[in-house]
């Protein structure tokens, strides 16, 4: 039997003792955080903003002095955010986060489109979208008669533009809307959203883009022709959790999902979190201002990681755009790898034991890691799509973080290989008999 944990040379701390130390030193956070794509630590500018406004009293919709003060903070934040991302302030609807923004941008737009053209129920998308988009479209298909059309992806995760255009041409009359994420949350591939939106516009189909992962990391042209709406989230860029925005063209009138006080152009009722939106604006300003410098710095760290990976785990496969021209086509801080024969959740477990926080991409509410739907949409089989790991770097990431990962990874990979698949999935030892008559039918 292999005994990897704590089996280092005498006197040298093994991964286990490292973990143990981390447990003693830091209760709520692990020493090496490589999961910025899940959520980023609070940015100094956002922190300062929260502390400045934390004691604010007043509902932004109240008509008295305190209300006006809160209103002013909200509207100033809206203007600051708008300026940072290059849109008009009235085009920003604050929401509770990216998921709500995607739901409003998709469901609201779908219902509005169907009200105008009842027979146009198609939604053009790709299989690599975030679950906030995929599951929303699936829900619309199940309950509202929507018909999804999936555009194919290239092996690097980017949409096949000619195929996208062909689907638009073939189904134009049947499409209510289209949607394409700006940057993929797992693999990091940046999509040609501007070209895809322009193509959609030519046949009169609006496009919603989930720009949650792109904001602050790559330039986003949210006013490019054809983009009807875009989803943003504060906590991916160092803002607080619980705040996001739907950037919505002024000519767009989706059907509201929630009703009440008529806030946010009557499209998103509910009292705004003035402190939260102010911190969101502060984080966005800082992230956009630092974008070019950070992008260069993170690309450097990324190269260090990828080059080190080739030495530490030679059989690892880096997913997403590669090659000399790839820099503009991927997120600078995301490294997504396939570790053949190593279940993603086992590698995550071993790294976590060593005090390194990484991700497999997706987990269900019970905490079970599933195969990467993104990799499967890119053509991988399910077994391969289970053997993935995402390392996402951000503002606080250092060379030491990358080096710590590279030091821990070979041991984690060896242990995961030894442990094998959790459930005999790809070794053929488990009989695959279907026992439910309904399943067999």
């Amino acid at each position, binding site marked *: 039997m292999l005994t990897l944990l704590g089996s280092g040379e005498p006197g040298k701390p093994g991964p286990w003792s490292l973990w143990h130390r981390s447990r003693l030193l830091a209760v709520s956070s692990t020493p090496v955080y490589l999961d910025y794509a899940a959520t980023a630590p609070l940015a100094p500018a956002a922190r300062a903003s929260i502390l400045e406004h934390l004691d604010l009293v007043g509902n932004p919709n109240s008509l008295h002095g305190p209300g006006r003060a809160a209103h002013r903070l909200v509207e100033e934040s809206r203007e600051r955010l708008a300026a940072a991302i290059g849109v008009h302030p009235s085009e920003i609807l604050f929401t509770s986060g990216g998921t709500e923004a995607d739901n409003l941008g998709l469901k609201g737009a779908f219902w509005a489109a169907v009200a105008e053209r009842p027979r146009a129920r198609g939604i053009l998308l790709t299989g690599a979208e975030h679950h906030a988009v995929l599951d929303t479209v699936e829900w619309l298909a199940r309950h509202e008669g929507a018909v999804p059309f999936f555009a194919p992806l290239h092996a690097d995760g980017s949409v096949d533009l000619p195929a996208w255009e062909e689907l638009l041409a073939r189904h134009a009359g049947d499409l209510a809307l289209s949607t394409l994420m700006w940057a993929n949350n797992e693999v990091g591939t940046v999509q040609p959203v501007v070209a895809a939106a322009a193509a959609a516009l030519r046949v009169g189909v609006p496009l919603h883009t989930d720009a949650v992962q792109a904001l602050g990391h790559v330039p986003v042209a949210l006013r490019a022709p054809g983009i009807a709406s875009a989803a943003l989230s504060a906590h991916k860029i160092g803002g607080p959790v619980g705040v996001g925005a739907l950037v919505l063209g002024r000519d767009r009138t989706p059907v509201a999902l929630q009703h009440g006080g008529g806030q946010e152009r009557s499209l998103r009722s509910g009292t705004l979190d003035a402190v939260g939106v102010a911190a969101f604006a502060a984080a966005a300003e800082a992230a956009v201002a630092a974008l070019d410098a950070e992008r260069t710095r993170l690309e450097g760290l990324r190269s260090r990681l990828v080059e080190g990976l080739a030495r530490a785990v030679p059989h690892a496969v880096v997913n997403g755009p590669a090659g000399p021209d790839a820099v503009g086509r991927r997120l600078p801080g995301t490294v997504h790898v396939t570790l053949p024969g190593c279940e993603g959740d086992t590698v995550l477990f071993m790294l976590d034991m060593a005090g390194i926080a990484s991700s497999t991409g997706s987990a*269900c509410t019970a905490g079970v890691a599933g195969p990467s739907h993104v990799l499967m949409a890119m053509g991988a089989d399910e077994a391969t799509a289970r053997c993935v790991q995402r390392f996402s770097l951000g503002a606080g990431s250092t060379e030491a973080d990358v080096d710590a990962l590279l030091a821990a990874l070979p041991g984690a990979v060896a242990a995961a290989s030894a442990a094998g698949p959790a*459930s005999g999935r790809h070794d053929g030892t488990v009989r*695959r*008999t279907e026992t439910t008559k309904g399943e067999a039918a």
Partner: protein
Amino acid sequence: MRILAAMSGGVDSAVAAARAVEAGHDVVGVHLALSRMPGTLRTGSRGCCTIEDSNDAFRACDTLGIPFYVWDFSDRFKADVVDNFVEEYQAGRTPNPCLRCNEKIKFEALLDRAIALGFDAVVTGHYARVARAEDGTVELHRAADDAKDQSYVLGVLREDQLEHCWFPLADTPSKALVREEAERRGLGVAAKPDSHDICFIPDGDTRGWLAERIDLTPGRIVDQDGTDLGEHAGAHAFTVGQRKGLSMGRPAPDGKPRYVLQVRPKENRVVVGPQELLEVDRLTGIRASFAGAEHPAAAAGTWEEAHVQVRAHAEPVPALVRWAGGPGSWTVQARLEGSLRGVAPGQSMVIYQGTRVVGQATIETAHSSAWDPSALATNADAAV
């Protein structure tokens, strides 16, 4: 030691983990996702019907200050436990899925994985005791609390598995004390009710669940002598000891009620007979194993005094047992001093000597010494 605590989300495993932490070990909590939700567009939404149990386990680990993970064993669970459960019923046997889960999932799949990942032992909340004999070999014994003793469902564990098991609740005098301890430790699951049902049949309707998975083919009902008594709708719907639902339309010659004595799926026949033939005193068992070192009497092939238990909380009965075969192919015969009622093939017979679990076997045949069912087989063709 580096300990993996298997956390079901119940109070027992939470307290077991707490004791392991308190003893100074490095403990990691793992909840097994065993059931599956129907697939959606989102692939791999497995284990999600255990959200509440998973969350309870997570919260217990938070309280104990230990890491928590969910491991997905749903494919193995389906193949080794659920499919096996159906197959056993199809073969006319009555399996114990909890025992099977211990054998194949908790102390095989989970334990193997834990060892591969550098753990020394797996801790669970089972009520049973692992002890060392003087010669250093490992033994499995009943728990201190007879009412909670779970050594029966662990009887299938082999020596190599027991070497890496720890059941910290072994010597707890009662479950009530475990709940008190959970309360004292601030564990939210202190008052959580015990689970009794088969976990993958949440509404407890085993017959209904099986009916959805096993096709029923009409066949014949015969008495203990092979005399044809009528038709049944499907042999798999019957279980040994059953009285109701035979619908034969006419009474037995002696006017007494008749009971299912045997289900013979190969011939698709159900054998019924008088109540007294339900009292069985002759058992044969296959797939026998030893919970620790091989019993010295096994190789000798001599009859050995022991106690036999056939259900989780049944009374053990005195018996003479004899092993035959050898490693990998052990079988067991048992002659009971008294008798047991309604014993069905597929159940496990666990063999005890004192508090010690000697081993177990899957019951292949169980009948009264007053009746020889093998005689029925010879006229099977004529009867069908």
